[in-house]
């Protein structure tokens, strides 16, 4: 990876969020194509998929369900690799959006190392889609907060409590850019807007390609895997089901990885998010009106700051009322639809249990075979030794061999 000879100065591109704006897709593409990119002068410094997440946990001193233990020293390790790379490096994780000004200063200074040009990238989507998406993300992380309570918390100007403060930390676009962009010229601060629904599929990626400096470096096949893994969002009834499941499993029934694998991955991502013809989670009229007004202020502010915009700030202006499906309240879902989603979940869990049972049976058979093999080989060894001992009584050569074996065994036992 280090053989590339750059002609341009060292450059660091920091993609700091926001969640639910295609960040996982970008990270997946960068991770899967890191070797090919390195050959073309672009470093995505990671030996494991979540390496930048761990570095962000370290920088922000965030605990995260036990993962933080693996994050000790992760930021400094990331910095060392970036500073060793002579070309462009890309760092991407959406929780970086919450960094305070002091943490931003540490991050930028450490990565720049006095000689690199630092660029900050923030991808952004309109609030009317972001607010429900954040609630769903909370539900997929064990929370049991009702939708209306969530909306009340995030619309409260005081922003108190972890839920509201986190939401605004990762979603308030002008403030995130003010924190991350302070000290940088506006042309080094980039906003990637997520296109409105119905836009061409590749439009968002093309915007990312431009600001990350990847234009012409990756072909269609490089994106295919990431496209297959992209998770569609949950519907209103499906999210209501997960919330009810959380209420039942949070009392010690599922802990740590079991919840992540069974509820988030198996049920939410692999089962419920693939259900079709289901109501999406939207905003009630009062919150929608508030979000539209706030979006206007954001767009005005971003325009004044003269940041580089990949896309169009108008993408952040929510669509006029009436173009979306009617609001479905996930706190009072369609019970038939929830029951149907529950049946789909049971079927998926049963097939998973059957698969695990088959796996257990196969492992049981393999274990039995291995034991039998061990017994057979032990039996053979014992028979050989007996024969040699017997033969040693009459045969001098066998006696010498046996004595040598015993000496050797004694030496090994002593050294152990």
């Amino acid at each position, binding site marked *: 990876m280090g053989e590339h000879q750059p002609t341009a100065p060292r450059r660091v591109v920091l993609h700091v969020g926001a969640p639910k704006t295609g960040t996982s897709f970008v990270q997946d593409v960068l991770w899967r194509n890191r070797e090919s990119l390195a050959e073309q002068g672009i470093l995505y410094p990671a030996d494991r998929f979540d390496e930048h997440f761990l570095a962000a946990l*370290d920088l922000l001193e965030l605990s995260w369900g036990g993962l*933080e233990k693996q994050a*000790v020293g992760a930021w400094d390790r990331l910095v060392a690799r970036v500073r060793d790379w002579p070309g462009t490096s890309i760092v991407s994780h959406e929780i970086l959006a919450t960094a*305070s000004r002091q943490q931003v200063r540490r991050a930028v200074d450490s990565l720049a190392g006095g000689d690199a040009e630092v660029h900050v990238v923030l991808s952004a989507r309109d609030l009317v889609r972001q607010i429900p998406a954040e609630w769903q993300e909370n539900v997929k992380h064990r929370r049991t907060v009702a939708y209306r309570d969530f909306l009340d918390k995030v619309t409260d100007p005081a922003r108190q409590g972890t839920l509201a*403060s986190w939401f605004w930390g990762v979603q308030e676009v002008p403030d995130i850019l003010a924190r991350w962009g302070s*000290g940088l010229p506006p042309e080094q601060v980039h906003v990637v807007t997520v296109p409105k629904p119905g836009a061409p599929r590749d439009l968002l990626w093309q915007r990312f390609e431009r600001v990350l400096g990847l234009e012409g470096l990756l072909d269609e096949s490089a994106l295919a895997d990431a496209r297959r893994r992209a998770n569609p969002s949950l519907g209103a009834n499906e999210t209501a089901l997960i919330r009810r499941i959380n209420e039942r499993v949070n009392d010690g*029934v599922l802990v740590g990885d079991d919840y992540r694998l069974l509820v988030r991955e198996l049920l939410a991502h692999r089962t419920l998010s693939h259900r079709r013809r289901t109501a999406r989670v939207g905003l009630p009229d009062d919150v929608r009106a508030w979000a539209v007004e706030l979006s206007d202020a954001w767009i005005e*502010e971003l325009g004044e700051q003269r940041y580089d915009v990949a896309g169009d700030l108008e993408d952040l202006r929510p669509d006029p009322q009436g173009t979306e499906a009617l609001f479905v309240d996930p706190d009072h879902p369609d019970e038939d639809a929830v029951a149907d989603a529950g049946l789909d979940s049971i079927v998926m869990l049963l097939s998973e249990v059957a698969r695990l049972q088959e796996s257990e049976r196969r492992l049981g058979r393999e274990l039995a075979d291995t034991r039998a093999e061990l017994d057979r080989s032990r039996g053979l060894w014992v028979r050989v030794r007996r024969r040699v001992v017997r033969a040693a009584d009459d045969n001098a050569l066998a006696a010498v061999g046996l004595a040598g074996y015993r000496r050797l065994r004694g030496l090994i036992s002593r050294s152990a």
Partner: protein
Amino acid sequence: MSVPADYEQAAWSWTEHLRHGGTRTWTDWLSSGWGSDAVVPTAWVAPGAAQLEVVRRLATVSGLDGPEFTRLADLVLGRSAPGRGLAHQPLSWPDRPPGRRFGAPPVDPSVVPEEELLRVAVGGLAELALQVPVARERSPRRGWLSRTSDVQVVGAPVTAAAVRRRLGLTARRSGRASRVVVMVQPFDRLLAEVWSARVQRGAPVRWPGFVRRWSGRADLPPAADLPGLARRWADRVGAEQVHLVSVHGDPATAVSKALGLPVRHASAPLRLWDLSPEAVDLCRRVNAVLAVRVDQQRHRAALAGLMPGLASHGPGEGLTVPRGRRRWARSRAEGLAEDLRSGDYGVHGDLGRLVPTFAGVAGPDRGEELAVALSACAGLGEEWSGG
């Protein structure tokens, strides 16, 4: 998003006032001239309201002054609060917003929520705990008088550790013993001691979450599963050598009477401290920071330096389970007591005491916890300055 110069001047001059040990509030500072001739350094970024308020309150409890206090203040002001919470809140401004249309709302530092002040204090405390060297406590040499192979004390972990220390009994990992004491406590206190022990060993789990998790399970934490402990020891030493001591009053005296052992002068280092609920919770918050900052060995060393300061506040009010889990706690305790009665163990005291009366607090008090945090910060700050 330009910030008005006079706001910057006011914020900077107040910050300087606080860095040098001043204790005037922001409102007071604004109403009395606030150093409008101050020259604000280029690229200076105002600390958050919570950081400044913590420094102000530290000055009221710290024995440091002059450059030593400034060093401690800079440590607090120079780092962000760890974990999740409000980003730096700007200081409130009387006539207009302080130049920010977006971001966390401005606030009068004197009304910043205690939770936010705690986050800042915990960050400082974790930093200090990492920087203050810990004198390594050495276990006393095992003499011929120690009864290491004779008596094993198990059950409520904090009480058991205190009893072992007072009676000069060294805990043995080999598990050899001829007599075993199972410390019986009201079930809520027993759980609280298990929680305290886990936190003191580095766990970041909250009390309500700890209770909720165990209340949904069929099993119990090993140290709280008294019948399980008694059975396992009975298999080794015989049921007649297992003594259930129901604590009422001083536990070491109770065990001393039950087994006829003299109480000795405690010389061994304390392995688990009898902390107040607030001190345990504070330790839990520090654990969350240390877990992401350093490896386990440094984490343990940092906690060892922190503990004496936390313990100096005493054990406080006892902790009981939150209201919604009391039915579970009562029924679980009755089951445990019945199970213990059915064994042929030696019983000293009333096993009915296992059933909780739910006296005590259902969780740490945040205001009190903040006071413990500031006092611990001040204490470690003095050690850090070589005081």
